[in-house]
């Protein structure tokens, strides 16, 4: 609008007359002599001042028509944006509060079983399919439409374990009737009978089953760990290490030839499928119920233990666990990793589900409902968004993995806002006010009081130990860390 150099045309004006001010001579004292001098001066330089004054054209800053979006010119100069940190902190605080407001993790309850649900299986190819086995031998299929698609009577008595083949076309079940059955994934056509593709009659009860990631090989456990070829009716290899019963066996999803199992003699045994004998085992203070391999870190696995804790081990160094995860107030029954390998979810006898970061000692989230009883089986969905829990009172529950997450498609601006607030929450997570709000969870009274009691007991034990150490010879009572406490020995 304004050209930078504008030469004033007024040449013969006397500034003093117009309110100009001469610093050497306070106004009002301009004598005649001075005036004369200044007039002459002004005539000599034909007033060549340069001036530019801010003058914005509103058209550059206002939208042209009502159909346009508003113009928002930005200037990122930090001095125009004071209080950067306190404002960000306030935003982070608001984001944390909103997260708690929107934390509604429970999505659906899938009912239809007529007995407690004992096991579940994920479909490797289809996110919307999932299998469940109950105590009366039923296998029910569920879809994200939240309805049962197919029901079949698989076994007499409990269905102990089930697994879908890696290709997703068939699945295996084991039951209390000492059989392994292979079933087709497709629903039988009209008039066809529900019949297993294959049935293998074993010598003893099977408690768990898992399938190899790439080959037609599966593993069962019961009195011993058996490795089966799909084509044969007898195991190609059997492992036992002086134990009479195993509760769980799992293939490593990355190093596919490795296996781990939980035995009733409080041990976790590792195997290599290619070798004739087990690799090694670690014996702990109490029995482990199940274990799950980290899908991203081939050497790490987490086991759920009877002593209310979960333990993450590095299979190379079994002499002490990597992390001890505490928070449950009763035996932990099942555990499953998220597909990203960063978190896992555990199901407990205390009627709650907890989500742990893989390297943190305490849970980041706890889920419970009034009607949910002892949670027996738990699965984290392959898209990292949902958690499925199967419990005693015949229901399967669908939960969100991130309690405050908004489901469905997000607009780009929504996504950006979510990312921004997540970053802010991360940045200020250690501030006491924000941490208090982010950590706050409502718990059922029984669990709350029980955890308090456990805390008191633990503190008392620690105090006693401290006192003993104080009054004994220095060095005679070495400090045993929490990690070392729970491992008895490692056998190779």
């Amino acid at each position, binding site marked *: 609008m*304004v050209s930078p150099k504008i030469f004033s045309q007024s040449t013969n004006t006397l500034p003093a007359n117009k309110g100009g001010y001469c610093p050497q001579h306070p106004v009002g004292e301009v004598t005649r002599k001075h005036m004369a001098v200044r007039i002459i001066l002004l005539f000599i330089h034909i007033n060549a001042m*340069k*001036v530019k004054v801010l*003058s914005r054209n509103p058209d550059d800053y*206002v939208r042209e028509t009502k159909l346009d979006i*508003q113009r928002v010119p930005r200037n990122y100069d930090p001095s125009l944006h*004071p209080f950067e940190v306190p404002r960000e902190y*306030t935003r982070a605080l608001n984001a944390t509060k909103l997260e708690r407001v929107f934390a509604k993790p429970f999505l659906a309850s899938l009912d239809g079983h007529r007995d407690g649900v004992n096991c579940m299986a994920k479909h490797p190819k289809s996110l919307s399919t999932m299998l469940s086995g109950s105590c009366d031998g039923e296998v029910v299929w569920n879809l994200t439409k939240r309805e049962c698609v197919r029901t079949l009577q698989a076994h007499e008595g409990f269905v102990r374990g089930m697994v879908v083949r890696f290709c997703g076309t068939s699945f295996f079940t084991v039951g209390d009737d000492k059989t392994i059955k292979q079933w087709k994934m497709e629903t039988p056509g009209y008039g066809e009978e529900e019949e297993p593709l294959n049935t293998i009659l074993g010598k003893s009860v099977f408690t768990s089953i898992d399938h190899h990631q790439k080959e037609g090989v599966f593993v069962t456990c019961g009195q011993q760990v058996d490795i089966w070829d799909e084509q044969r009716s007898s195991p190609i290899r059997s492992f036992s290490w002086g134990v009479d019963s195993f509760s769980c066996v799992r293939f490593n999803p990355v190093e596919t030839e490795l296996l781990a199992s939980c035995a009733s003699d409080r041990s976790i045994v590792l195997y290599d499928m290619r070798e004739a004998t087990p690799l090694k085992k670690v014996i702990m203070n109490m029995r482990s119920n199940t274990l799950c391999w980290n899908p991203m870190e081939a050497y790490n696995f987490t086991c759920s233990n009877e002593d209310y804790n979960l333990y993450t081990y590095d299979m190379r160094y079994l002499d002490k666990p990597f992390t001890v995860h505490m928070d449950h107030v009763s035996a932990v029954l099942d555990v499953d990793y998220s597909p990203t390998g960063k978190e896992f979810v555990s199901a407990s006898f205390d009627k709650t589900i907890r989500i742990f970061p893989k390297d943190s000692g305490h849970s980041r989230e706890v889920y419970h409902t009034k009607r949910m009883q002892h949670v027996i089986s738990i699965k984290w969905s392959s898209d990292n968004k949902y958690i499925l829990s199967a419990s005693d009172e015949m229901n399967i529950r669908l939960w969100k993995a991130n309690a405050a997450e908004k489901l469905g498609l997000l607009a780009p601006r929504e996504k950006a806002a979510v990312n921004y607030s997540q970053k802010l929450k991360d940045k200020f997570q250690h501030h006491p006010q924000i941490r208090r709000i982010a950590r706050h969870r409502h718990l059922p009274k029984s669990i709350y009081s029980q955890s308090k009691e456990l805390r008191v007991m633990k503190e008392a034990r620690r105090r006693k130990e401290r006192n003993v150490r104080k009054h004994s010879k220095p060095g005679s009572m070495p400090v045993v860390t929490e990690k070392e406490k729970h491992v008895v020995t490692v056998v190779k």
Partner: protein
Amino acid sequence: MPTAIKPHRRRSQPVGMTYQFLPEVKKYTTKMAASGETMLKKPHVGKKRKPPTRYWEGTEENGKNDGKKQKEGDNNKQTPQQNKKRTKEGGKRGGAGEKILSGKSDPFPGSAPVPEEKLKKFKRGEKGELPPRPQYKLRDVVVRSEAASDLAQKQNARYDLMLPEDAGFLEGDEDEDTCTISQDDIADAVDITAGAKYFNLTLSQFGPYRLDYSKTGRHLLLGGRRGHVTCLDWQSKQLMCEMNVMETVNDVKWLHSEALFAVAQKKWLYIYDNKGIELHCIRKFNDVLRMQFLPYHFLLATASATGFLQYLDVSVGKEVVAICTKAGRLDVMAHNPHNAIIHLGHSNGTVTLWTPNQREPLVKMLCHQGGVRSVAVDKTGTYMVTSGMDKKLKVYDIRSYRPLQSYFLPAGASCLSLSQRGLLSAATGDIVQVYRDVWGTPVTKPYMAHRAKGSVWGVHFCPFEDVLGVGHGEGFTSMVVPGAGEPNFDGLDANPYRSAKQRQEWEVKALLEKIQPELIGLDPSQLSQVDHSTWEQRHEDRVQALGFDPLAKEKFTPRLKTKGRSSSGKVEKRKKQVAHEDQRDVIRQTVEDRMKIDKERKEKEKKEAAAAGQKSALDRFRK
């Protein structure tokens, strides 16, 4: 035991190096790429002179070299591979003078450089030290976040080049002082819209006037001493409301937007909306003389004749705190826009700094002999300008509370105001002087001057405009002061051209991120700093509870070895090898640094010597 030493050596790589030179890495690679060709021409092995032949080179040469090539065998084979790799790298960066297919070379390869001072403008704090290597995860997080902030800084600096407006300026002829140029001349010289910003309102009945501009600079609020209160859109000269409150008016202030304003009247504090309707009469706030509004905290700070400093939260309408300053009548007040601290000037020559969180002043500065007449603080919170009854104008650095400059004004300044770009206006009697850069080199002459019709009662720079509002006994004068206002506003913070809808949206957002009064302190960025003391306290408590220090380093106990290797002498030796492990890195680092500096110095000296002195014939005898 060499194995014990090895890890040290590895760790002794300067820890800070990779991080410090992070931006440099790029430079290095581009350099590599640029000089790639020349490097390749150098012989790979000492004997070889010519580079390996290529199929695209002439066939004659091929024939010549054939025999040689077979002789050299393995060494030769490796070079083409290396060559390929290097050119590939070079291709990514776009080395200087690199030729493209058409044969032309890019004269400006790579991204444009960002000027250093622009980068400095967007710098936020110094970079911290990286955590030691064993904490590799934390280290990774820190490195990533540093890289992200570097990128943001660079992008901001780049964007800064594209800002549409430039600041105003005024330059006289060689011998002409800019202060002799009158307002009429300026108004004549500039375009009509800018010229219209110089105007007078003759309001001789109810003056003298105090004034306030809204945060966006669009709206003007005038309060006459004898009760006349008016607000208007000063650019379009549209009157929003006008009234007489039939009481003495001590001060007027816009609240967060142009919809509300506060008027300090004879007895109580009143809040009006822009139609002039009285919304609240706040009886907790009596005898208010001066007011300041803290826009990001939604706090209205008032100073009263009874010596009380009170804070009103205007978003909820509650008094936050009332502080008895015990300093008598408070009629000098300013606020620091950088950290929201209130500055009060007192009749004994002191200036005190206040927050709502403390009953005592944070700082008490003796600034003048005799009373303080006016205080102003600049936008960045670095400088404070005060004027006193001793006719002095002083500039302080309020980060260190050091006096920077002291000026003597014959008449003394009654009102001070600082503009967004750091111009200072001082009113002496009926004359308004504008100074430029008072904190830098000592100023001898004002930048501009103007004589108002009556004695000046209030001056205020308009944000985002080159305008200085002057309230005086005969009304109001709007002065044009080129170079006063920030030329480029931020549309999400204060947008002078915002629509009603945009204002509503801004209001909601601003209310959502209202900063709590507890967060006001001398350093507003303190929240982002690591709280060491609390951590130490907590760690102490933990040690107390556990009975041992979980973070303590394990004492080194040498392993028992057989065949005489665990004799006490050997054990001592082994112990010595790991002793002071933590200090070794530091020592090694300092030694390396010193050596580096020494080397640089020597090289520099050598160069200087080479440049300065031609070789004399006697140099050959020098050692």
